[in-house]
């Protein structure tokens, strides 16, 4: 990590201070609304069904779904943060070009944005975790390690999408990513029910994305069922996405800025 990356993260912080009120809703209030709606409404139905206890690993539905919401919120935030703001940096306000004229390099811009996204995901996950700790059903020490898991999942989506956003010419593709990647993973990625409920083919698609790996690790932490080696294995898969995305994003941005 370079000091330049932290300077760039400082830039994102300065920009964010202008709009944090708007973002608060999507990164904090929204997951809580899902939690209340699903936990109270759907949870009451699910928990009444005697067979579901075994499927959910003995947890109440709200305890099952809470870590899923924590992680999917990070995924959604990481994805959004690496779309329009990247295009703004290159095409609209062109801040990336301004930075390229200083001693900083493409690597600093990408890493700095990554640092900032990790911070955002961490803050939002902390806020959600704090709210979860308030309810007896979802209160768990496992919420603490779930926060860094959320940060990694956020990055595992943000960095590959950033690599894509750097190269894309119009912002039309961003809505498509939301519709065909983020929302399907939100619904079919193992956050709301175990993947075993899905056809095997769909399970494999869900398992190929980093979301599910983050969800089951976070859930393993909050329900105290995670083995250390098992967790490291799944997180390594998540980290690999973040790392590959970062490498690709640096390469793409270098080509774009220094042509």
């Amino acid at each position, binding site marked *: 990590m370079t000091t330049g990356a932290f300077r760039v993260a*400082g830039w994102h912080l300065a*920009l964010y201070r202008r709009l944090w009120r708007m973002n608060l809703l999507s990164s904090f209030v929204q997951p809580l609304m899902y939690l209340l709606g699903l936990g109270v409404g759907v949870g009451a139905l699910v928990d009444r069904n005697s067979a579901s206890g075994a499927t959910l690993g003995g947890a109440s539905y709200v305890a099952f779904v809470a870590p899923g919401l924590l992680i999917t919120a990070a995924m959604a935030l990481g994805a959004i943060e690496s779309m329009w703001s990247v295009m703004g940096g290159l095409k609209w*306000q062109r*801040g990336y070009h301004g930075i390229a*004229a*200083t*001693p900083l390099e493409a690597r600093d811009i990408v890493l700095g944005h990554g640092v900032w996204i990790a911070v955002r995901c961490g803050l939002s996950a902390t806020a959600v975790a704090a709210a979860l700790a308030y309810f007896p059903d979802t209160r768990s020490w496992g919420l603490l390690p779930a926060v860094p898991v959320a940060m990694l999942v956020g990055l595992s989506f943000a960095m590959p999408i950033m690599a894509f956003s750097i190269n894309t010419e119009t912002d039309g593709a961003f809505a498509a990513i939301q519709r065909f990647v983020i929302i399907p993973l939100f619904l079919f990625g193992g956050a709301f029910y175990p993947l075993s409920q899905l056809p095997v083919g769909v399970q494999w698609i869900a398992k190929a994305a980093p979301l599910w790996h983050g969800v089951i690790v976070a859930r393993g932490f909050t329900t105290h069922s995670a083995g250390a080696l098992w967790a490291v294995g799944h997180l390594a898969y998540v980290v690999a996405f973040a790392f590959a995305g970062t490498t690709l994003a640096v390469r793409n941005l270098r080509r774009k800025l220094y042509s």
Partner: protein
Amino acid sequence: MTESLIVARQLVKRFGEFTAVDGIDVEVQRGEAFGFLGPNGAGKSSTMRMIGCVSPVTSGSLRLFGLDPATHGAQIRRRLGVVPQLDTLDTELTVQENLWLYGRYFDLSRSEAKRRAKELLEFAQLADRADSIVDHLSGGMKRRLSIARSLINEPEMLLLDEPTTGLDPQARHVLWDRLYRLKQQGVTLVLTTHYMDEAEQLCDRLVVMDQGKIVAEGSPRELIDRYSTREVLELRFTAGTNEALAPQVQGIGERQELLPDRVLVYADDGEAALAATHARGLQPESALVRRSSLEDVFLLLTGRTLAD
């Protein structure tokens, strides 16, 4: 003793098949105000991007402060100020936030960045707008902020790519005045422009570029003396008759040029040329005698006006 801050030899920039810069030689000394003059697409901006170390050299050699941009890009950029053709300001932040943040990219401490920002706001005549959101500034103010921001690292050389394009005349004069002050402070200025008046006002020395090549080099005065006559007579005939009447001024002055909207007669004595025109029985709708300008040099060298 002079010190060359820019030394380019046979510098070439290609984008695929297209050659934007086609083997130019340039040398800029410390303290000079140097201009690249040429129409759009002449290769000025590509040259500036190579000098700014954000565009790799295709072939030939380029040295800035004696360093190779391919290997010392970051070190060179640390000593440069860059005012790009399109502003790269953070439009949703305040004027002073823009300066502070940019200073941080050059490793200035927070307090030093704030100290310099305060000075630069005075210099750019934006002190009373320090807390304004950039989006609310006029075009001229944004340009001045861009220049102020490019000075935050106290650069030895300032690169300005078409600094006054799109500004109204008053805003341009304010900007020129600020640039002139910088030059007096010893900052080396390198700028591109397609405005003659700008080049004449600001540049000690300039090169005229056309289609990626340098077609002339010298001070504005030298170029005019070398390539043009002292005065120019501009004749406008009734619309549509310029072409038919142009042959009739042949032989008057040293040289004649037919443009879509007027006929130019190059002569050391413009009034005498006008008298000669009238003596031939020609009745132009309007006639104007003016001093030769860089525009005329450009027209002679490239066969085109700069607006093309």
